[in-house]
């Protein structure tokens, strides 16, 4: 950790945001022609493309579950997504992110309606700038809604970090790299209310009170993202009405 970098100056963060302010988010649903559902999401400098296929036949066939659909999630970072070229292909980090993200989404997808089939979610990080797993989850859940897959609610995700002793919402790369802690959250939202936490990871150290504060901050941020996710899907229906 370098001491010479000041991440918080005059109560403002490195990019001029307040502690509880999100980065700019742009969500567009149904961008890919051949996918059943898709979504393009920009969250600050994160650029994410998500595609959903299915429920479809399971390939290879032996993986099929006779009582429910299987969910497969692939988080992948493009070689050009970070400053120094990333070696393409799955690595330890992306395999882990894929697993935890899949488990978060599995909890809301009504897999029992589609026995012997698979729901495949592919998320590509085109440009990364901290909190890409949370941006990916947001994109993936919009893509799932776009694909018309029955879900109990929606997953909305945001990260919280501890920077220079302050708890801040939605960190950027500098805050993530030189901050004291980083906690990605994903919430299960139903009927505009937070029902439960679907994902929680942490690196770094936090006290109990700081964690409680972090959860509060994340809940606030998540509700804003939820509204944007909802708008992105509703836009498709409003366009249809005009036609």
């Amino acid at each position, binding site marked *: 950790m370098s001491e010479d970098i000041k991440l918080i100056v005059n109560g403002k963060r490195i990019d001029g945001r307040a502690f509880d302010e999100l980065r700019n988010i742009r969500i567009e649903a149904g961008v890919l022609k051949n996918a059943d559902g898709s979504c393009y999401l920009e969250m600050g400098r994160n650029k994410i493309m998500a595609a959903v296929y299915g429920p479809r*036949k399971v390939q290879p*066939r032996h993986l099929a579950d006779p009582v429910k659909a299987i969910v497969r999630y692939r988080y992948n970072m493009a070689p050009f997504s970070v400053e120094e070229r990333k070696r393409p292909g799955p690595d330890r980090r992306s395999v882990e992110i894929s697993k935890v993200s899949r488990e978060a989404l599995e909890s809301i997808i009504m897999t029992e309606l589609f026995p012997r089939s698979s729901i495949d979610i592919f998320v590509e990080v085109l440009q990364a700038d901290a909190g890409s797993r949370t941006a990916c989850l947001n994109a993936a859940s919009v893509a799932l809604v776009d694909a*018309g897959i029955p879900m*109990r609610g*929606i997953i909305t995700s945001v990260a919280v970090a501890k920077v220079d002793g302050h708890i801040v919402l939605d960190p950027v790369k500098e805050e993530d790299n030189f901050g004291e802690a980083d906690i990605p959250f994903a919430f299960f939202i139903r009927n505009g209310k937070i029902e439960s936490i679907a994902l929680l990871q942490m690196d770094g150290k936090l006290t109990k009170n700081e964690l409680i504060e972090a959860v509060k901050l994340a809940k606030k941020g998540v509700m804003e993202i939820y509204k944007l996710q909802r708008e992105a899907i509703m836009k498709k229906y409003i366009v249809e009405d005009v036609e």
Partner: protein
Amino acid sequence: MLVFPGDFLGYAEEFICDDGVYSEEGKLYASKAGRVKIKNKVIKVETINEIPKISKGDIVLGEVIDTKNNFALVEIVRKKGFNRELTTYKTAVLHISNISTMYLKDINEGIRYKDIIVCEVIDDDLKLSTKKDELGVIKAKCGICGGELLLKGDKLRCKECGNTEKRKISKNYGKGVW
């Protein structure tokens, strides 16, 4: 009314759940995004991007995966009107009496192994029929050399070896539409 997954729609006593609605602890929620339709106390959510389900009366595209003495097994690939894969492998039965309106002495006069056929589902148990004009074989291969079969009158002739074969031919044979 436009809804989003998880939106509260009512109580379990008020409506009967249909597509796109689920009930939990006596409450009804939407499971898909779309428009709410209520008819005769049945509530459902209609989406743009529907997942295909096969039921009686549907027109489907399939491939013959096996022929027996008096029936053929057809793997259904697509449902008409949907540009989306089916959820699982679905194998249906096409009985010799449902292939054509005319008498067939042998099932191979109507359809053969590996033919691409368009059928109508006549039973929820996935029984098929190809009796109508627009139904039947839309693409077939020569039984001898595997070459492409072209339409010649009411028969099919192989482009490569000149062998002629009989089928229950759809009026859309070889046009690439169904």
